[in-house]
């Protein structure tokens, strides 16, 4: 399988920076399998990353790639998509990148329902800077900036995307890699804003401060905590406490932003041609 993915990688950039036991490689593998399945043309696919261990993935990918500023990958991606609507634009981002400094861009991209696919690597922590809490760090967990346990509640980022306007929302874990691949495939197919939350392990900056001894132990935790959305529907909220609900969480039809732009342009041009509106004249 690895051989089949090699054409998508800039192998000359290896070895990668990720720690032993880090889940980022698994998420990246799922993304590449999804791209392969969809037979996306490498030259017509753009991958945009923010800043963080996860976002670093763009450096290893042989597509058109862009390494953006911290938190603002979605703003860069919006610019690319508007300039070149025919390209597939995929965004790779971390939990801190997407929901802390980039939280505003995140909800507004979702609200516009612009045709972008976001793969959010949720490792519950700021990995790259050494383990500070993020808006997705669960309450009570330890981070270098919450040495006494985190007092802030976390976002449910899938719920956030849904209520902001996303038209496709899914969640899986690195343990459930097959499902993760399928969700990414569906996310890319969806013409609109898609969020795929990938729950992944950061043993170095998160696990070891919170009683997980290795990346493997964290995978087992994912296996044990995950509940498929179909099964969760039949469970009480008390039973779902601390569980990770996985699967296709939300899907709906709604007008997509680029097509709205295009129909606006078409409408205005038609009206101008027929003389029913007078375009503003510059002096």
């Amino acid at each position, binding site marked *: 399988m690895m051989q089949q993915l090699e054409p998508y990688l800039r192998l000359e950039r290896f070895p990668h920076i990720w720690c032993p036991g880090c889940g980022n490689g698994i998420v990246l593998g799922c993304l590449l399998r999804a791209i392969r399945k969809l037979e996306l043309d490498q030259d017509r696919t753009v991958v945009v990353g923010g*800043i963080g261990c996860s976002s670093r993935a763009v450096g290893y990918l042989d597509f058109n790639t862009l*390494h953006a*500023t*911290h*938190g603002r990958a979605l703003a860069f991606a919006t610019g690319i998509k508007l300039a070149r609507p025919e390209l597939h634009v995929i965004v790779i981002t971390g939990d801190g990148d997407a929901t*802390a*400094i980039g*939280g505003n861009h995140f909800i507004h991209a979702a609200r516009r329902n612009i045709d972008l696919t976001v793969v959010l690597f949720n490792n519950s922590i*700021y990995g790259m*800077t*050494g383990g*500070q*809490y993020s*808006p997705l760090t669960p309450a009570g967990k330890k981070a*270098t*900036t*919450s*040495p*006494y346990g985190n007092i802030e509640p976390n976002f449910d980022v899938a719920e956030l995307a849904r209520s902001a306007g996303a038209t496709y929302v899914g969640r899986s874990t690195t343990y459930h890699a097959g499902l993760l691949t399928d969700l990414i495939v569906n996310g890319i197919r969806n013409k609109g804003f898609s969020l795929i939350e990938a729950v992944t392990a950061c043993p170095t900056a998160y696990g070891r401060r919170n009683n997980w001894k290795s990346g493997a132990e964290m995978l087992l935790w994912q296996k044990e905590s995950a509940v498929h959305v179909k099964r969760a529907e039949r469970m009480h909220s008390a039973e779902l406490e601390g569980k990770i609900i996985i699967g296709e969480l939300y899907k709906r039809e709604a007008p997509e932003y680029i097509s709205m732009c295009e129909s606006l342009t078409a409408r205005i041009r038609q009206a101008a041609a027929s003389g029913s509106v007078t375009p503003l004249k510059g002096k």
Partner: protein
Amino acid sequence: MKVLMKGNEAIGEAAIRAGCRCFFGYPITPQTELPEYLAKRLPEAGGVFLQAESEIAAINMVYGAAGAGARVMTSSSSPGISLKLEGISYLAASELPCVIVNIMRGGPGLGGIQPSQSDYFQATKGGGHGDYRMIVLAPASVQELADLTAEAFELADKYRNPVMLLGDGILGQMMEAVSFRPRTALPAQDKTWATTGCRGRARNVINSLYLDPEKLERHNRHLQEKFRQMAENEVRSETYRTEDAEIVVVAFGTAARIARTAVDSARMQGIRAGLVRPVTLWPFPDQAIKSVLASCRALLTVEMNAGQMVEDVRLAVAGARPVHFYGRTGGMVPSATEILREIQNIAGVAYGASVS
């Protein structure tokens, strides 16, 4: 008693001892040890630590806390400071005291995480919009990081203005022995202007919006008068072996530490070299530089950037002597040998061929 501490942590400890009870920050290398230290220590000291959702959020939280009368601090490194600039302009305009720490890394853009001094312009020439100034303190050791942090809070309150502590990745990361000022009762802080609830007194207003241009100009005159007083009273610098120096190196922070070694080496080779180290970058110590000109034939500015402070040195010298520049960028640190070579080159010109 001296303790061995990392520079970033020493700033945190000094801030707590100076009465800082509110800190709002966001992680970024190479300053993250400072928020991490305060996350641990502030609750013990009865204060609050909050990791904001961004640098922009943090600086505006600073505005809120400062307006409410708290001693407050934020910290970041170069890209994060760029994000804070709007807030800094508002703080200065609204006359709110606070301490802002910048532990610089190489830029521009995302740059790197290695030490740099390339935010000199940003710190001293405004950075944010509008006519404002802030005192910029440039420590060169862990001890000085601690001392100047304490002083920064006092200056901020004295002038009701933001004060910046400008260090770099080396100062933030290195460990040195440091002693803190004895914990005395904190000097009474005059915060009668703060918005603390106006029952029983006239209303306090903290504001930077003046739609009437006449009023805005009046406000600006008031601010400018305050900045003039800062410039008059708060200049600090250090000179080293300048009494008879023919070649004077000007450098701040980490670059000054290295330059000092180069000055000693030059002296051993018979070159009369000296060093002026600005401790306040704004206000800039023009006088200290002018006062070494009598014996001085040429100056050499050494910076970890492409040449920023050198412009202020040239303004101070006003063409009276040649001002040379040597700098490294991108996180590269000039070595004492490199600086010595520059001194030798300049000396070679000034002394004929007397120095090999």
